[in-house]
Structure formats: C-alpha cells, structure tokens
C-alpha cells in the first residue's frame, strides 16, 4: 500500500474561530475515504487546504510525498479537485473550459483530445459541449466540475460533494464512475448522504467542530446500528 495523502495535525483559524483543530488522516492508493460531518464541521476547509487553496495555520500535508506548501506545483499536478459548488468560468463553453484546463496542465495534441473525449464520455456531457457553462443546470455544472477534475487522470481525487444537485440516475452514474476508478487512485469524497458511504467508501472519517471524531470502516460503523443514528451519536453526543 502506498500512502498518497498524508495529513498531520492540520489547523486553520478564521479570526477567532478555529475551523480545523488538529485533523490527521491518511489515504492509500485503492481507498475511497468518506469525509463526513455536520455543516460547518471543517470538511470543505480541510479539502481546500489539502488542495493548496488555503494555507494551513499549523500541521503538514503531503501529497505523494510532496509537501503542498513547499512544493505546491508538483503536488497540484497529481490532484484532481472538485471544489465545493463546482465553480467554473461561466462564460466559457464546456469544451472551451476543458481545453483551458488541458492547456494549463500541459496536455497537448492528440493526447489532450483523447482525454477530453474520455472525460466527456464518463460524465455524459457530449450533448452540451458547445453551451456556455452558466446556462447549464446544477447537475450539469457539477458534472463539468467532475470532468475537469478527471481530465489529467490524476492519482488523487478530492471531491467536495460530487453528487450534490444530481438526480437519482446521475447519482448512480457518478457513484459507479467513482467506484470504477477506486482501485488505482486515492479518493476523498465529502458527502451528506449516508447511503453513499455504504455504497462507495472503504473508510469513513467523521469530523465535528474541526476534530476527527471517528476513523473506521463502514462495516464497523454499521455494526453499531443504522448509520443515521451512529452519525448523530458521534457528531452530537448531547442528543
């Protein structure tokens, strides 16, 4: 097993608020880590730091052995990232946007065309490639974000709520897609959908108030009762 993502004692403050308070986790090749927690627990903030968008106030992040703070470009080349809300350049067409991402990542010629075709196929976007992204529905925008994250066939995928805004069929497609890629990648997905955890994840990390509350396999959690109840007990001990 190779550890592709290694996070140690990560900290982040926003003014007086401690958003992330000593989170450590590691993800090996072949693992799909479900990252759970109530809203405001620090999931997105943690993911923003792992992908190098925010600078941590403490702790270290290693992406395939490269520190994201000291060697950001090398680390970013290995990551495919779907940010929260799947932001994109709304005035660009889907194909223009993907070509821009390919350009930035240094994919050229025939290989770039093949990769773009491949991700369009995987995310089923062929019907809308000439439409400006801002005219697309939420589900399509999410899939454009996913296509962008998969474009360079990265070893590491960080997906912030990849199935948010998709209809049940699309959710199923995206889960099948993620599962099919799981074997040779290290994947972190954050989600609020607990059934997704059962269907997809090999490991679960539950955080609340910026701290890791639980790091277990879905099977271990299921042994304690329905996931809903387990999640509530872990994140809200008072209830």
């Amino acid at each position, binding site marked *: 097993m190779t550890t592709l993502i290694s996070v140690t004692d990560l900290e982040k403050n*926003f003014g007086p608020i401690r958003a992330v308070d000593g989170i450590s986790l590691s993800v090996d090749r072949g693992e799909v880590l479900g990252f759970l927690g109530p809203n405001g627990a620090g999931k997105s903030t943690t993911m*923003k730091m792992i*992908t*190098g*968008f*925010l*600078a941590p*106030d403490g702790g270290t992040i290693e992406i395939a052995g490269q520190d994201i703070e000291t060697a950001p*470009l090398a680390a*970013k*080349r290995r*990551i495919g*990232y779907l*940010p*929260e*809300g799947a*932001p*994109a*350049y*709304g*005035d*660009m067409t889907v194909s*223009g946007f993907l070509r*821009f*991402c390919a*350009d*930035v*990542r*240094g994919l050229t010629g025939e290989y770039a065309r093949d990769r773009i075709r491949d991700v369009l196929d995987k995310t089923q976007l062929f019907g809308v490639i000439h439409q*400006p992204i801002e005219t697309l529905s939420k589900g399509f925008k999410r899939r454009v974000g996913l296509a*962008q994250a998969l474009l360079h066939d990265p070893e590491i995928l960080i997906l912030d709520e990849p199935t948010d805004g998709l209809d049940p069929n699309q959710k199923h497609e995206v889960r099948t897609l993620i599962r099919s890629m799981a074997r040779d990648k290290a994947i972190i997905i954050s989600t609020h959908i607990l059934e997704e955890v059962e269907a997809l994840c090999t490991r679960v990390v539950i955080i609340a108030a910026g701290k890791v509350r639980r790091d277990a396999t879905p099977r271990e959690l299921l042994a304690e009762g329905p996931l809903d109840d387990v999640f509530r007990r872990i994140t809200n001990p008072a209830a």
Partner: protein
Amino acid sequence: MRAALAVYKRELASYFITPLAYLFIVVFLLLTGSLTFFMGGFLERGQADLQPFFSLHPWVYLFLVPAVAMRLWSEERKTGSIELLLTLPVPTTAAVLGKFLAAWSFIGIALALTFPLWITVDYLGDPDHGVILASYIGSLLLAGAYLAIGTAVSAATRNQVIAFVMTAAIGFCFVTAATPVILDFVSGWAGSALIEILSGLSFVVRFESIVRGVIDATDLVFFLSVIGVFLTANTLIVDLNRGR
C-alpha cells in the same frame, strides 16, 4: 510559462465573449476621436501632429482602464472560480502575468484601432512619424501603469464597483501629482525634495515628455517600475488571501 500562456489566452478570449470588449472599444474610439476634434482643436490648430489626441489619454484612461481591470480578480473571487485557478498547477506569478498581459493586449487592440487619425494627419500634412510612434508606445506604457494598479486593486476585493472606484482614485493621484493644485498645496510647507518627488511621480509629466517625441530612458523605467511594483503587490495580495 505554459500556464501563463494558457491564462493569457483564456482571459483575452473572455473579453470578446461578452459585449464588454466591443462596448469598450466603441466608447474609447468615440471619446478619443470626438474630444480630439472638439476639445483639442485638432483642425483649428493647423499643425500636422497628434498632440491633441495623445494629451487626452491620461484622462481617458483614468476611467476606461479601471473598467477593463476591475473584473480580472474580483470576479474570480466572487464566482469562486479562483479556487479552481489556484488549485490548478499555476504559479501565482503566472496567473498575475497572464491576466495582466491579456488586459494590456486588449487595450493595445483598442489603441491600435485609432490608426485612422494617424492616416488623417498624414493626409492633411507632413507629420513627424517618429514622434507619433513614440507617442503610441508611451500611451501603451501609460495604460499598462493604470492597468497594473487596477489588477492589484481588483485582487483585494470581490466587489467590482469598489475595484473600479479605488483604481480610479489611485490613478487620479498619479495623474494630478504635479498639477498646480497639489503643488501649491504642498509647497507652503514641504521642501523642494517632496515637490521633486511629486512631479517625478506624475503620469502626465512623464507621458507628455514622451509625446513631445523624447523617449527618455528614465520615463520608460518609470512606467515599467510602476507596472512591476503593482504586479508584485498583486501577487502578494493573492498569496496573502490564502492565509485569510
């Protein structure tokens, strides 16, 4: 370099997807064209040169360049696409440079489209083409200086209106630095050194010496330094926002 080029191409193309580019070019051409004739007395002067045209530029750019610059970073911050841009393998300096050069090229295109004036003056008389070429280069440098201020300010806010107003305000300081209003105000109490510095910082004084046909190395260095300083500030602001 590759990443900077990709950003450059995307930014330049994005001006032309929206009506903004065409609107800007039309307003720029109408404004400079009409003011040259009506305020500058282009025909009445009876001289075959483009002095009345170029002497307007510091004032026209004061409002038009912030309009080009304001969206460069603040729009990315507002829509969240900045998260995408900064998690792609793009060094911050490459993103800053790509955006700046795209906007500068765009202004360059607008400026180049004023060529009919050059043809007109050549038809009417016998102008000094060297001086006119020098003036165009000076004008492009002047626009670059305004633009660098604008991109740096744009990186500091997610509100485009604030970016516009702040850029115009800072630009105004550079334009009026050597006008009698400011100099009279300062000369009462400040030493001659400060007055020297103020007139040295004036966009108008620097630009007008180029328009007279003298491309002095110090004027070139001045405009390039203003661009360099504000682009460095721009990079720092983008990096500082990571720690926010």
